[in-house]
């Protein structure tokens, strides 16, 4: 198991490193000089050269890459030249919105999707199954940000239960902050819940036809008991893969949905940074996003190893 985990970790680290290198060189190709950008067009060439030296821009690319990578390991993502603040701090501030939103959406989609998938598989071909699958078909087809708008129309404008947008910082009133995240997380979660329900159903239907379920029934279990004791855990294996991908896409989805609800998250920061050509900030944000995505995949891999003994090799001599 330790070997298995180690190998996965090496893969995870390699992916991250490669991604960082690719991003660095891609953004390094860009025309435009941050120093000139900072000082404006009226600055003298000497002043620009000075600042370039100060920012370490005159070093060869690979040296700057190394110092950037080294800095990130120490938590230093460089300085944003539009906001004149450390990138790490800016990102951290925004993650306080994006991460809770993603996690909430993830929990909601699991709480709704998995049980519905199980119910659907158990009632295969009957009315509840049809109803759930029609809903899921609809859910998969709805763009999450548009769904967010519709939710706002109903629950914020129509029923006035929840705020239509904006965000109260956590340290002022956590309860209000949480309320602000309910609609966005629902908008993110429901399409994902539909996918989960479909995947869970397929996986469970698949497992129901397997020989070991018949063995369990032969022991004296009813079909329902056999599925519950032996089927669900096996069916969760394919679901786990989807969960991993899902977390990644929820992070990506938040970037879009934040726009609907005017949430000060990572997405809004990135879009501002792009329009102001603040590449150091863009670079930092992309790295954070990729770390989140890759780390999720890594955790899923490890969980896979924990759940499925076939993956971790011989556990006992």
């Amino acid at each position, binding site marked *: 198991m330790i*070997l298995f985990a180690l190998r996965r970790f090496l893969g995870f680290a390699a992916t991250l490193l490669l991604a960082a290198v690719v991003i660095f060189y891609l953004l390094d190709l860009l025309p435009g000089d941050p120093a000139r950008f900072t000082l404006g067009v009226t600055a003298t060439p000497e002043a620009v050269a000075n600042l370039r030296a100060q920012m370490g821009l005159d070093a060869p690319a690979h040296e700057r890459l190394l110092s950037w990578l080294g800095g990130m390991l120490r938590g230093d993502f460089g300085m944003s030249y539009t906001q004149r603040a450390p990138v790490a701090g800016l990102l951290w501030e925004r993650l306080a919105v994006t991460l809770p939103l993603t996690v909430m959406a993830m929990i909601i989609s699991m709480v709704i999707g998995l049980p519905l998938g199980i119910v659907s598989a158990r009632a295969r071909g009957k009315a509840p199954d049809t109803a759930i699958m029609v809903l899921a078909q609809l859910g998969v087809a709805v763009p999450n940000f548009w769904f967010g708008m519709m939710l706002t129309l109903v629950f914020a404008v129509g029923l006035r239960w929840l705020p239509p947008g904006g965000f109260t910082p956590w340290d002022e009133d956590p309860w209000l902050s949480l309320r602000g995240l309910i609609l966005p997380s629902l908008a993110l979660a429901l399409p994902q819940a539909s996918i989960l329900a479909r995947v869970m159903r397929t996986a469970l239907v698949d497992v129901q036809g397997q020989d*070991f379920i*018949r063995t369990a029934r032969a022991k004296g279990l009813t079909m329902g008991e056999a599925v519950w004791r032996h089927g669900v855990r096996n069916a969760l294996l394919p679901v786990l893969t989807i969960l991993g991908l899902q977390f990644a896409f929820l992070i990506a989805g938040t970037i879009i949905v934040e726009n609907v609800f005017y949430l000060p998250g990572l997405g809004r920061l990135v879009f501002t940074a792009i329009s102001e050509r603040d590449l150091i900030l863009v670079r930092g944000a992309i790295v954070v996003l990729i770390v989140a995505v890759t780390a999720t995949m890594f955790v899923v891999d490890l969980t896979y190893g924990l759940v499925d*003994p076939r993956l971790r090799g011989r556990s006992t001599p």
Partner: protein
Amino acid sequence: MSLLEVKGLSVRFGNSEAVSDVSFTLERGERFGIVGESGSGKTLTALAVTGLLPEGAVMGGSISIDGMPLPANEREMARLRGKRIGMVFQEPMTALNPLMRVTEQIKEAITLNRSDSAQLDVPYLLEEVGLELRHGERFPHELSGGQRQRVMIAMALASQPDILIADEPTSALDLITQKRVLDLIAEICTRRHMALLFISHDLKAVNVLCSRVAVMHRGRLVETGPAASVFSSPQQDYTRRLVASSRFEVTREDHQSGGAPLLVVDDVVRDYRQGGIWLWREKPLRAVAGVGLAIGNGECVALVGPSGCGKTTLAKIIVGLDSATSGQVRLDGTAYRGTDLPREQRRDVSLVFQDPFGSFNPRLTIAQSLGEPLRLEENLDLVEKQRRLVEAIEAVGLRSDMLARYPHEFSGGQRQRLAIARALVTRPKLVVLDEPVSALDVSVRGEVLALLARLQAEFGLTYLIISHDIDMVRAVADRVLVMEAGRIVEEGSPETIFAEPQHRLTRELMAARLPDVGEPLLDRRA
């Protein structure tokens, strides 16, 4: 009153009836066998008895245990089945929950059906089925097929049932393991005085295990009676055919053999790299560990051994699908290590595969598939190539208009003929046959073997037959090589090797051989 009574049982799927009007009884401690070919409805009959019919199946007739009809309520039926009936299925690879330790799975069977302590019983059960305690701590994928089947038996015994139903429990196992599992079932039934309902396509297995048999064909029982009389003097045509095809008649035809060796295998070793990274890399698996052999022109040599002994790997190296780690092969004087077999020599060897269903690309016509090896004959024009195809397909007893068809239009036996035809289009000298008949229904095995013998005589072919089936080998081979753990351990003519086996493995193989049906049997039956 009978322990189990089945009356007028039928199983329907929509409009088609898979089982019709099946009636039989099973007495306490009796061993009853149902034999039939695939699709005869024998498995559905067993599932009906246990209330495990697949969704969509409609059952008619009545089944009762101790005179009580089976309960209609699902939970009651489940508990009854758990308490009274133990079951062992065909596929030991998939029949166990892959995520649960073996002990836990056995324990579940005990606690479900008995209130007394389970901890004490698991070791006892493991011991009863010939496993050690440490096996209980493993996951199913860490056990061999035979060990898993033993676990299945332990689970079936956990509730101390009075009926054991075994559905093809040994057909996925190799010869020696099969014998051991059959012996185990017999021994346990005797000791526990348990009734056995044994379902199999293998007449020999039913013959050694059961005192009474029923023959099933197209959903009906065609003949029922004591095993000895049904098999030695069958009353029905179908039973007669079944009994006849279960024996391999000697199909040897006169053929030229001897002379200079066509194929020489010289100290071939094949290692497979195992998992692990770099420093932690596991020791390589040695599939073939220094094999040397020679096959003369026109000979028919058989290579026998248990599964995993390396015989298939060796065959792949000879035909150029895999490469030896060291050593070399010489075909007609040309030396190679495997995949480097030169193009000009590739036409001289060919291979017939075991599974007739997987050996044809479903998207290509038979002509396209058969014509594939002809790319080695660059100097042939289209007309000549077409003539080769016709010649090959007619040689195996099929018609040339079948060339335009697709594989799914043929039966298993026909496909195996087609596979042989494909092996012949380049007019090879050596044909390697990997279990050429083991995937076929018993009734067509004889035909295919006769065809092979005829072709050998006609074209002067040299055969290397890879098999685990001792009886088949005895019927066709001039010379037998016995292989174990990557080495050849014994060699000789079939007569001497089977009459006086020298090596331990050969002796075990011979001992595991089930007697032909109708042969006098040393009676061990209850």
